[in-house]
């Protein structure tokens, strides 16, 4: 070491102490800066940072509400929610994912062909979020899984609620079905009350009463970490379930009608004429809505849509058919009311009708000989109504038929209803392009007289018209929902109905005459539905056949199925205080007598039986 004198050491010390003092002051300054900064962060701005810290970690998550239940008028359950079991995996809890998936495949717990697809999905998603491996486990699969649970760590069975329709395909066109929410659905409804996880009504009541059935989602306050993993549940606000619906439908009648329609294409609509409640609502062929609600592959759904029998098509409200002879009682009423026919006058029917300037005759389906109004309805004489049509003219006919609410929507509580057609000159002018086609021909008036030509009506419209006949003029707007049950209070809100009566001015004796004709259809020899029902049954009706294709009647046997006539039947029962007004349409069923009337018989009999029981 270099030797230093005491003096230089003193000098050294002074300089050094100077600098140390300066440094110490600097240290105190820097420390003060830190403290000031900390005071700003932790005291002055603390609230702001506390809020940001909460925003980091708190997530609000909505819980889907449980959907309202649907009952029939007798409290039979038609739509409920059932747990479906699915297989879920949390990837980070599984050690060898490939091996486990392989094992699951071998036990048939997952689809073997989808393993590679699953592997890919697992790789792409968060390792702590559960992934669904199988959306629908059968009872057997649940049992197999339970037996092997110890091998499958990180895999578990979870349940979710899925819409279930206990009566399967019997009510499908009335109830509709539900499915997962599509982007289109979000446009229809208030997206703020949807969590995206629930099922949404896609058709019929499920769709049109969506807001009633849906309810309001609950909220969960979750504590999440930086990767979104839920660490804790802080607060839960339960969901408010959807309200229940009580329908006007009667399961018992629906079942009878549905069974009677087995193997037939068509529709049955039965309305209580006293209040517009729809008791029967059937469109066949039907489908099992459970299959759609529990998730159906796109190909399965496409196959459904492309089925030539159109099972998804709601014939009861959207099927438009020529009403055929079923409009005869209504036209007869118009003729009587306006004085075009005298009920006591008999006119001859030679089996055909000739119009001046028309070379081809208008054929009747039979030679009826001498007929008056009652007989013409009873035997469905075409010639009688050809003549009446020509006398009335198309304008008077169409305006009178409109009073039966034909040609306009019934305003039932379902969307996608069609309004049918009651043709007249103006309608033709508006609906045809070429000038030549726009003018109305008298031949068209003639066939309108037997419900052919341009005229179209839905089964529901005909049922409502039948209700008017049964009620002698008045009817109520048809509806499927009888009451909404408030799930909180249990209070029932009944659907109010609107009475329509355009036919108040009709004389009772005229109603008597057409009722007499319709009773004769069922109960008298030469009646078109005679022999189908029990003798002297308290039923009034009218058959109809509407031509799908104009062919020579003599070659009936060789007509291919899809070109056969549609068979129709309208009717009501019992005669005193009618309880049901019914319309049945069987597509390509041949005449109304052979296809539709037997279905009506079964329903009417059930009504009358229950009437008798009530009477006892």
């Amino acid at each position, binding site marked *: *070491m*270099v030797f*230093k004198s005491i003096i*230089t*050491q003193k*000098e*050294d010390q002074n*300089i*050094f*102490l*100077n*600098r*140390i003092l300066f*440094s*110490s002051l600097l*240290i105190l300054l*820097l*420390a003060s*800066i*830190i*403290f000031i*900064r*900390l*005071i700003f*962060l*932790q*005291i002055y*701005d*603390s609230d*702001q*940072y*506390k809020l*940001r*810290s*909460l925003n*980091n*970690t708190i997530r609000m998550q909505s819980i889907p509400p449980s959907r309202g239940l649907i009952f029939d008028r007798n409290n039979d359950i038609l739509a409920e929610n059932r747990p479906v079991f699915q297989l879920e995996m949390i990837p980070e809890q599984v050690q060898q994912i490939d091996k486990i998936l392989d094992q699951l495949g071998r036990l048939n717990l997952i689809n073997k062909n989808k393993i590679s697809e699953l592997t890919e999905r697992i790789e792409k998603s968060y390792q702590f979020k559960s992934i669904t491996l199988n959306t629908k486990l059968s009872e057997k699969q649940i049992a197999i899984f339970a037996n092997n649970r110890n091998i499958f760590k990180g895999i578990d069975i979870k349940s979710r609620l899925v819409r279930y329709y206990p009566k399967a395909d019997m009510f499908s066109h009335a109830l509709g079905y539900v499915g997962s929410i599509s982007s289109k659905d979000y446009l229809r409804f208030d997206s703020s009350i949807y969590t995206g996880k629930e099922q949404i009504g896609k058709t019929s009541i499920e769709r049109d009463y969506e807001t009633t059935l849906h309810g309001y989602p609950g909220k969960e306050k979750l*504590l*999440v*970490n*930086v*990767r979104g993993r839920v*660490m804790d549940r802080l607060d839960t606000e339960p969901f408010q379930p959807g309200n229940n619906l009580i329908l006007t439908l009667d399961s018992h009648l629906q079942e009878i009608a549905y069974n009677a329609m087995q193997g037939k294409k068509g529709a049955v609509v039965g309305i209580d004429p006293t209040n517009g409640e729809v008791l029967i609502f059937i469109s066949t062929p039907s489908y099992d809505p459970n299959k759609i609600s529990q998730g159906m592959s796109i190909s399965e759904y496409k196959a459904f849509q492309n089925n030539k029998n159109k099972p998804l098509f709601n014939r009861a409200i959207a099927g438009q058919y020529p009403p055929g002879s079923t409009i005869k009682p209504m036209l007869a009423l118009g003729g009587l009311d306006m004085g075009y026919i005298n009920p006591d006058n008999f006119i001859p029917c030679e089996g055909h009708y000739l119009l001046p300037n028309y070379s081809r005759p208008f054929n009747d389906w039979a030679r009826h000989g001498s007929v008056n109004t009652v007989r013409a309805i009873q035997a469905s004489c075409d010639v009688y109504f050809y003549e009446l049509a020509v006398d009335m003219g198309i304008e008077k006919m169409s305006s009178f038929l409109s009073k039966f609410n034909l040609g306009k929507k019934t305003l039932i509580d379902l969307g996608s209803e069609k309004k049918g057609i009651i043709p007249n000159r103006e309608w033709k002018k508006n609906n045809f392009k070429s000038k030549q086609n726009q003018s109305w021909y008298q031949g068209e008036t003639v066939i309108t007289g037997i419900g052919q030509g341009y005229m179209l009506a839905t089964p529901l419209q005909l049922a409502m018209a039948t209700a008017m006949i049964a009620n002698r003029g008045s009817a109520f707007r048809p509806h499927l929902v009888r009451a909404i049950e408030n799930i909180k209070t249990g209070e029932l809100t009944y659907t109010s109905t609107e009475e329509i009566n355009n036919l108040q001015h009709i004389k009772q004796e005229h109603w008597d005459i057409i009722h007499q004709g319709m009773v004769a259809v069922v109960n008298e020899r030469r009646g078109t539905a005679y022999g189908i029902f029990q003798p002297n049954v308290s039923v009034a009706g009218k058959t109809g056949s509407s031509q799908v294709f104009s062919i020579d009647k003599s070659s009936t046997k060789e007509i291919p199925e899809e070109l056969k006539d549609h068979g129709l039947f309208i009717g009501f029962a019992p005669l005193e205080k009618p309880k049901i007004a019914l319309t049945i349409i069987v597509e390509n069923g041949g005449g109304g007598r052979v296809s539709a009337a037997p279905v009506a018989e079964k329903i009417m009999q059930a009504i009358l039986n229950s009437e008798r029981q009530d009477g006892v």
Partner: protein
Amino acid sequence: MVFDKNHNRLSSEDLFRKFHIDIPLLIAFLILFSISLIAIYSASNSDINAVINQSLRIGFSLGAMILIAQMSPLNYERIAPWLYSLCFLLLGVVLIFGETRNGATRWLNIGIGFQPSELMKIGMPLMVARYIARESLPPSNISIAIAVMLVILPTYLIYLEPDLGTSLLVAFSGLIVIFLSGIKKRYLFIAFTLFLTSLPLIWPLINEFQRKRVLTFLDPEKDPLGAGYHIIQSKIAIGSGGLFGKGWLNGSQGQLDFLPERTTDFIFSILAEEFGLIGIAIIICIYLFIVGRGILIAINSQDLFSRLIAASISLTFFIYVFVNISMTIGLLPVVGVPLPLISRGGTSMVTLMILLGMLMSVGTHKRLVSK
């Protein structure tokens, strides 16, 4: 022999003195180590293994410190040139043969990953102090120039790795010695203005990644999920802690992983979140106590070399604390400096404890020198 209470107390004090241990400093270290274990347990989401590992590192570092404290400052003075030369050589070697992690070539693989730049933290103050102390104060202009070169060369090598943070700290530990040696204020003023005016020239030379850090520091909210994420989450943690803190293991920013690197660079934020301003004020006071005690040791030591290294170690220690805290509260850019004695980490703690061991050595060997 008579053993009265008084005698007993004296003898235990003697024991510590015999092992060259400064009791106030040791107590301060032990408090900080305890805080370290508490904070690491919380920051590692209650991982007891992290605490055990840290305890082992603490034990090892304490051992190193006590060992170093046994040696007289004279020995350090003697080995200073050799240590410095070795470090300098290794810094050259690391640039050629070093292991690259995350784009930085800092490690030499000699069984364990070893950073020569860490060793330079010890070599630098020793070398500069020895060089300055060979003549009386104030040093001549030539001495200053040479001393500055001694500082700049290794600093540049570390900067090339690149490791801006460490290079600045190493430079500081050397420059502080020159400053304490009584360099004329005029020179200091010139150096300072030179530094400021050269900043725009240096700016394009430093690499992209470091420039981004500085820009982020100036406006972290510009890229809240990217470059600004660390500093924003750190400020949220500290600010939301408030005066009293959220309580141990209750800091949501830390417990729910919002705060990154929370056992190392951002452990201060965890402490601030869970123990509040009161908690960290106590911690800062302990640091200031250590610095103050170190300065006292420097003032009381008898020879210039001891004085210079004791002061350099104390002031460097303060700068570590200051840089780390400033970085977590957004006063300085994020440069990756751990919080002394509390952050998790092996090498940096051993290095620091060796330096503090030297401080103890200076503090406890002075009487021997005076005799």
